[in-house]
């Protein structure tokens, strides 16, 4: 029998991981919900941002905060760049072509990263203390990214619900032509959406590099998980994606302690496949 303290610790670690997964899932889901194209290479943009932070902080000795800001800026720029160069020309194409184009970007980015930085794993290690509550150690290197993720998610929520542009982003996702009749240039809304989605990727990259090492195939580690969360939550459903992030991170974390990390992923994918059949519209979709 496993000591219950380990399970509590695993559950806590699941929550801490869920925060960052939520960041990734919401960024990807926002873009899909508004522009209706899945960026297969989304987590590969995160990978580029992680390399940026690695070089700025580890190699050139920038302060951590400044490196993170640079990562966020790079993410936003990459988001705009991907939209203008890859998404805009294929907006009206068949869905399969859109998948091929963003999938092609994935292979391009992976090869590009391998060429520039080799397949070595690179990481930034911060020596931050842990604190202890009732026998459970919580490392600050995980708690701080979690707190920042939650602040970012709340910020995104306020942006989408309280501001003119944020509301317009939601409106475009419901009726693009009607929003043009309101005087909004859809292309401009798309660019803002891609920038916000990219910004979330940049922030996720800045938080992940302090917990995971980066390598050219980092996207393979978190990419499928991120898509799974988006589908589980209901593609385009932001609240669903948020909830699904924590369901998935808890499954992986708890099963990881009870059995092994690999088993955690196996169970997560099985749950996902079962849910696809049980609730194809996502966990929060209305029945019928």
């Amino acid at each position, binding site marked *: 029998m496993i000591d219950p303290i380990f399970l509590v610790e695993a559950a806590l670690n699941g929550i801490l991981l869920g925060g960052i997964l939520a960041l990734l899932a919401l960024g990807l889901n926002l873009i899909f919900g508004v522009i209706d194209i899945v960026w297969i290479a989304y987590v590969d943009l995160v990978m580029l941002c992680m390399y940026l932070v690695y070089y700025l902080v580890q190699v050139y000795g920038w302060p951590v905060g400044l490196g993170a800001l640079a990562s966020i800026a790079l993410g936003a720029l990459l988001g705009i760049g991907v939209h203008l160069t890859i998404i805009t020309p294929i907006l009206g194409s068949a869905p399969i072509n859109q998948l091929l184009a963003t999938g092609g970007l994935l292979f391009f980015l992976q090869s590009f990263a391998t060429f520039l930085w080799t397949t070595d794993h690179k990481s930034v290690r911060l020596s931050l203390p842990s604190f202890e509550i009732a026998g459970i150690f919580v490392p600050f290197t995980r708690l701080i990214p979690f707190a920042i993720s939650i602040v970012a998610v709340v910020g995104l929520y306020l942006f989408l619900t309280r501001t003119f542009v944020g*509301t317009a982003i939601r409106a475009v996702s419901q009726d693009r*032509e009607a929003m043009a009749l*309101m005087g909004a240039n859809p292309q401009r809304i798309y660019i803002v959406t891609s920038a916000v989605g990219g910004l979330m990727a940049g922030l996720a990259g800045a938080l992940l590099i302090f917990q995971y090492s980066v390598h050219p195939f980092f996207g393979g580690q978190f990419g499928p998980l991120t898509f799974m969360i988006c589908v589980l939550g209901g593609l385009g459903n932001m609240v669903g994606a948020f909830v699904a992030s924590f369901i998935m991170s808890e499954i992986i974390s708890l099963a990881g302690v009870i059995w092994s990390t690999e088993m955690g992923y196996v169970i997560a994918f099985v749950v996902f496949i079962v849910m696809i059949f049980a609730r194809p519209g996502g966990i929060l979709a209305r029945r019928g």
Partner: protein
Amino acid sequence: MSLLELAGVTAGYGAFTALWDVALRVERGEAVAVVGPNGAGKTTLLRVISGVLPMRTGTLTFDGAALAGHPAHDIVAHGIAHVPEGRRLFPMLSVADNLKMGAYLPTARARYRESLERVYALFPVLAERPAQRAGSLSGGEQQMLAIGRALMSRPRLILLDEPSMGLAPVMVLRLFDLIRRIRAEGYTILVVEQNVRQVLKLVDRAYLLEVGRIKMEGRAAELAEQDFVRKAYVGL
């Protein structure tokens, strides 16, 4: 000079031509109707004016500015608001957020509070439920919201596409009363309607559109007396 003037407008979808050499004008402060049978091209005409559908040939002049070929979001900025067929509300957004989107233009945004008060005064039923999702409103309320949303942009011309469509007869009468009140506030209106008898009581002039061509034009009262129109559309 007329507020809106169309000349030689031809437009369509793919190989299909829906409008042939259409000419039309709307004077400042006027209410004008376009009537005609289903499939005559009435909706296409409004879509061309608001820039949703690009015209193939022809000119569109609004308040002296040549607007042919301008995208929809730019035409709104010139002061033409389009209440489209089927209302096209943002169903998952609240009533208040739908109205907010109506004021998306920078010029309208600056006067958002004031416009909101005017729309709520015109449609008190909307003021009672600002937080309700637009998709859950009744048909009549949805049409009021669609018109209110268009008014939020502070337009100088309002295009109404089949405002009475899908409404109960009692609601149709109420809606026409509301359009009359909007007129009285000084708005210029171009309305497309199936409900010919009601709409001819509302407008100053009307055009009869048939298979994409303007067949007749005149004062609403005179047109209602024309045997042809009366028999075919008014049903008297």
